[in-house]
């Protein structure tokens, strides 16, 4: 066996170990979710060979409150994603194409926001939401996240690579500014908007801290927040918690399967555009 082959085998072994490490929590979640009272088993083997059930899933799906959490997550993630696409493309377009005094300074300040960890603004933002009366409301879950510096930056970089001549041609053909933005620029940005949409949706679907801070009424809780309430004070209902987690992970898994290509593209975003 030559050196190259040994290297390859070693590499594969390492990758397999890493993959198992990554997939184990997922496997554990599914295993626990299909057992009645999983906490009563003492050994792994005992658990594997005991009867399986989908009862936890049926219970979770039929519980009213879980449905509310799920719906809230869908509403919030969808609105935030739509907001990021529609509003950020407008801001990005202006930064990419228009000239006005102070443009560079404003753009740099937008970028600077990227550096600030969200947790730093936790308390000021909370105070703001309280003052607006937005605690326990969709407003606090949606509006602060509708325009993000990351999306502005990503789209601005992409729009800058689109030849200006295309817009000039459209202008001569009789198109106005809005028409050019939404009928010419936006469709051309489709690949990057897909990436942005997926990232934003996933990010919001999983978002925990701020929805947790801004809601204390079950009616407005999203899935990640709601699930924590399965952790009771004295005991934890593992079976139902894991079934809930499984259902909440489902959209993410589906998105990853269907949009793999775009997600990988997103990692190299900015460098794309044929």
């Amino acid at each position: 066996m030559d050196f190259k082959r040994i290297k390859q085998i070693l590499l594969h072994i390492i990758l397999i170990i890493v993959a198992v490490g990554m997939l184990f929590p997922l496997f554990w979640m599914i295993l626990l979710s299909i057992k009645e009272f999983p906490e009563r088993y003492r050994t792994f083997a005992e658990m594997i060979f005991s009867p399986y059930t989908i009862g936890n899933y049926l219970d979770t799906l039929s519980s009213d409150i879980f449905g509310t959490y799920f719906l809230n997550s869908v509403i919030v993630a969808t609105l935030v994603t739509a907001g990021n696409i529609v509003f950020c493309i407008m801001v990005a377009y202006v930064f990419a194409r228009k000239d006005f005094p102070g443009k560079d300074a404003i753009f740099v300040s937008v970028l600077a926001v990227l550096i600030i960890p969200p947790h730093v603004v936790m308390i000021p933002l909370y105070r703001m939401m309280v003052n607006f009366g937005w605690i326990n409301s969709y407003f606090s879950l949606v509006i602060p996240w509708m325009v993000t510096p990351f999306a502005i930056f990503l789209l601005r970089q992409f729009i800058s690579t689109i030849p200006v001549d295309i817009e000039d041609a459209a202008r001569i053909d009789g198109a106005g500014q809005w028409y050019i933005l939404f009928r010419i620029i936006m469709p051309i940005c489709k690949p990057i908007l897909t990436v942005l949409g997926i990232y934003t949706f996933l990010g919001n679907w999983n978002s925990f801290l701020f929805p947790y801070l801004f809601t204390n009424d079950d009616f407005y809780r999203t899935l990640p927040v709601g699930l924590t309430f399965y952790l009771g004070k004295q005991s934890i209902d593992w079976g139902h918690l894991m079934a809930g987690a499984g259902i909440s992970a489902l959209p993410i898994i589906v998105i990853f399967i269907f949009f793999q290509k775009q997600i990988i593209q997103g990692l190299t975003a900015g460098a794309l555009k044929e």
Partner: protein
Amino acid sequence: MTKIELKNIVKEYQEGVRAVDNFSIKADAGDFVVLVGPSGCGKSTVLRMIAGLEDITSGEIYFGEQLVNNLEPQQRNIGMVFQNYALYPHLSVFENLAFPLKIIKTNKKDIESRVKQISSITGLGELLHRKPKQLSGGQRQRVALARALIRQPAIFLFDEPLSNLDAKLRIQMRSDILDLHKTAGTTSVYVTHDQTEAMTMGTKIAVVDKGKLQQYGKPDEIYSKPQNLFVAGFLGSPQMNFIPLDLAEGELKNSFLSIPLSDLSLNQNAGISGSNLTGGIRPEHLNADVDSGIFRAEISRIEYLGHEQYIHCKINNTGICVRDNSPGKYTPGDNIGINFDFKNMHLFDNTSLRIN
């Protein structure tokens, strides 16, 4: 058919840079005006100001009798073809062509018949369902052309439309554009840096350099009577030979030439004075001879083109290029005699302006 008039157009950028300086031309209805000049000379800026894509610092632009300075591009009734085609990449060829009509809310039936008509004129019939990226460069430019044509604009603008195409396709497209111009008769302004395109396509040529109009006229006028050294050197390939000359005792002289003023076709001898004059003579007006010549020079290089050749000589640091029809007769290193008719010589003063 609309005439175009540019009156003292100026384009100044914030930093005080004048991209276009006091530019005035007049194009009659049906003219095909070519703006030609080296890259960065401001010719595209002039075109973009005509299109309304660029603001004018001062001056006036008229389409017919109408002042269009303050009209938006879409109000000017123009069609424009860009260097990089500027097709809408997400739309099919059909949708690209239909785009201008859709915006003015043409009904579906009319759009379809117009697209059909225009695509058959431009030979795009088979490609209507394709996306721009599935087309070759030539086909893309044809789509751009068709899209500009479809609204039947009063004025056509071309911004170096052929410079992304290969040489063979360029010649083909050149004649296609001229054919379209002949049928439609639309007043056109065409920007290029290619002098061959300028000479072959333009009914009028405007030579531009450093934002200023150097000369404006018919191709043959510009070629045979260049108004200054820039125009003389820019048009013609290989370029005109420039020979430094001084005026002394009624003769134009340098170390190897002396030409009696009376032998030049001059209007007014009084205008000529002093030194640092430049004589210009095109390669095709020079003859090489084995024995006799007005002056003799050594051959440094021969460019063989098949049907003819260009002999490059050197004499006292002055390069001279001679067109010759007898390939094989000379070899580099030969000393040859060079003859020419003094009447073919262009004379420029020390400010580079034409004298004769």
